[in-house]
């Protein structure tokens, strides 16, 4: 690029509508969102647009965020819990330029949080919106390849198949072998993929005061969990759901409760564990 992009009044890029998407598209997405909120956990089709980033980088989440964000909102974007990785930085900068909204890295200060594969450690409160980026919205897709058939199973609430998968895991390896994207029942009705968040985060979804929205750009699906909705991880009575976590403490803040990333430090087996939520970790260190 030779010249710097033209900047309009209010600090946003000239030639673009507020938050990049045109108003008709946003309205279409909001209609899908309203339906999704009305039927918790149900996947609503929507006309996903081409976005200026590749599929798999958060095209679904970015469209949902663009449709719900307003000029007064404060946006936080995390990628695997971190505020400072490529995906998080570029999406945050994208909205700063095309919507001129304030951005933050602090969970408590944000009104809209777009996330890839984590729920922040700091508990969310009423009025906040958590937007998930979803690669594959269909929880049954590895078990039933026919999309039409999965829709029928959802319509009839016929989820024995998912339990067969859990049964097989326990029969073969003694425990359920799903460490992320662990399937949940929403409001006792719809089986839902929580997006690839670690199973550790599943309990945070249950009766969360914040609104949770899910966008899958390539698969063209939107779904939602309204505030204070029951979200239950599937399990057996005698093999209850156990959220997994590395048995270690954070090398920086010392936390033994948070979800940890394992970082390999050399080629002789050296490793250490760090909080995956960088904001939470930094706050804990600042408090000390």
């Amino acid at each position, binding site marked *: 690029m030779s010249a710097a992009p033209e900047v309009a009044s209010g600090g946003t890029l000239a030639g673009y509508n507020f938050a990049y998407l045109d108003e008709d598209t946003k309205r279409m997405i909001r209609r899908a969102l309203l339906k999704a909120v009305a039927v918790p956990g149900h996947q609503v089709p929507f006309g996903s647009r081409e976005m200026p980033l590749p599929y798999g980088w958060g095209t679904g989440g970015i469209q949902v965020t663009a449709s719900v964000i307003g000029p007064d909102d404060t946006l936080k974007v995390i990628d695997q819990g971190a505020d400072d990785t490529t995906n998080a930085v570029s999406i945050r900068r994208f909205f700063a330029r095309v919507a001129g909204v304030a951005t933050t890295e602090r969970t408590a200060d944000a009104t809209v949080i777009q996330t890839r594969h984590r729920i922040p450690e700091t508990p969310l409160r009423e009025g906040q919106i958590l937007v998930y980026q979803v690669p594959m919205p269909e929880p049954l897709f590895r078990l039933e390849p026919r999309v039409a058939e999965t829709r*029928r199973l959802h*319509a*009839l609430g*016929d989820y*024995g*198949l998912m*339990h*067969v998968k859990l*049964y*097989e895991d*326990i*029969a*073969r390896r003694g425990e359920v072998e799903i460490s992320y994207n662990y399937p949940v029942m929403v409001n006792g009705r719809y089986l839902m993929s929580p997006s690839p968040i670690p199973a550790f985060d599943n309990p945070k979804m249950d009766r969360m005061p914040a609104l949770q929205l899910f966008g899958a750009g390539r698969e063209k699906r939107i779904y939602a969990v309204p505030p204070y909705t029951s979200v239950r991880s599937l*399990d*057996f*009575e*005698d*093999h209850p759901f156990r959220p997994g976590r590395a048995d270690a403490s954070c090398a920086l803040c010392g936390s033994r409760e948070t979800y940890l990333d394992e970082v390999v430090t050399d080629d002789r087996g050296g490793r250490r564990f760090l909080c995956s939520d960088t904001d939470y970790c930094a706050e804990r260190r600042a408090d000390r």
Partner: protein
Amino acid sequence: MSDAPILEASGLHLRFGSVAALDEVALRVWPGEVVAILGESGSGKTSLLRVLSGTVAPDAGEVFYRDAAGVLVPVHVAGEAALRRLARTEWGFVHQNPRDGLRLGVSAGGNVGERLMAVGARHYGGIRAAAAEWLRRVEIDPARMDDLPRDFSGGMQQRLQIARTLVTRPRLVFMDEPTGGLDVSVQARLLDLIRALVADLGLAVLLVTHDIAVARLLAHRLVVMRRGRVVEHGLTDRVLDDPQHEYTQLLVSSVLAA
């Protein structure tokens, strides 16, 4: 056997183009009764089974099923949700090819457990115990519970399919040539097993077969079909020992003696 039929069909018509697969067929099945539908290939027996089980809608006619609570369910009007519920609770299906009725990539225990989990069983130990018990009942070593059915012999697969079907104790089982494709000695053992289980559980069974020996061994009553019409029906021994219709006479006389 109680007084009210468990399954009742009347005036069934079904055409495939110019071919009449079903032509004014009526049928009743009472609880605990094994009814065999006998006929050559293309006589409409499999079409009849599909219509009775709600898989195919007839051009005309009605099918009623009386459920465990005594409520009469109109099979083709009840809707897909009601039919699916019936199919996983009160009905069972044993297919000719076990690959159609089993999940080959899921262990034997998981196959048997699937129906239990579909009706809400959520205790892993309980599901496993029930699966082991049923494997034993169909003469499969429970030690093979975690093996995949694709490693089983044809006869074992068929027995596994029967265990999977019967584990939720259905009231009515549809069987389509359950012994087809098995060799004679395996067939004999399987028939023995089915007969014992059916008597034990007091199941009503609708059995489709072209094999007169199978019908004689299992069925209380026979329905003989030809070109979509029921040409003769009655008690098994009566029909086979004293066939009235010329077609039944032909069928009976063309059995090869060993």
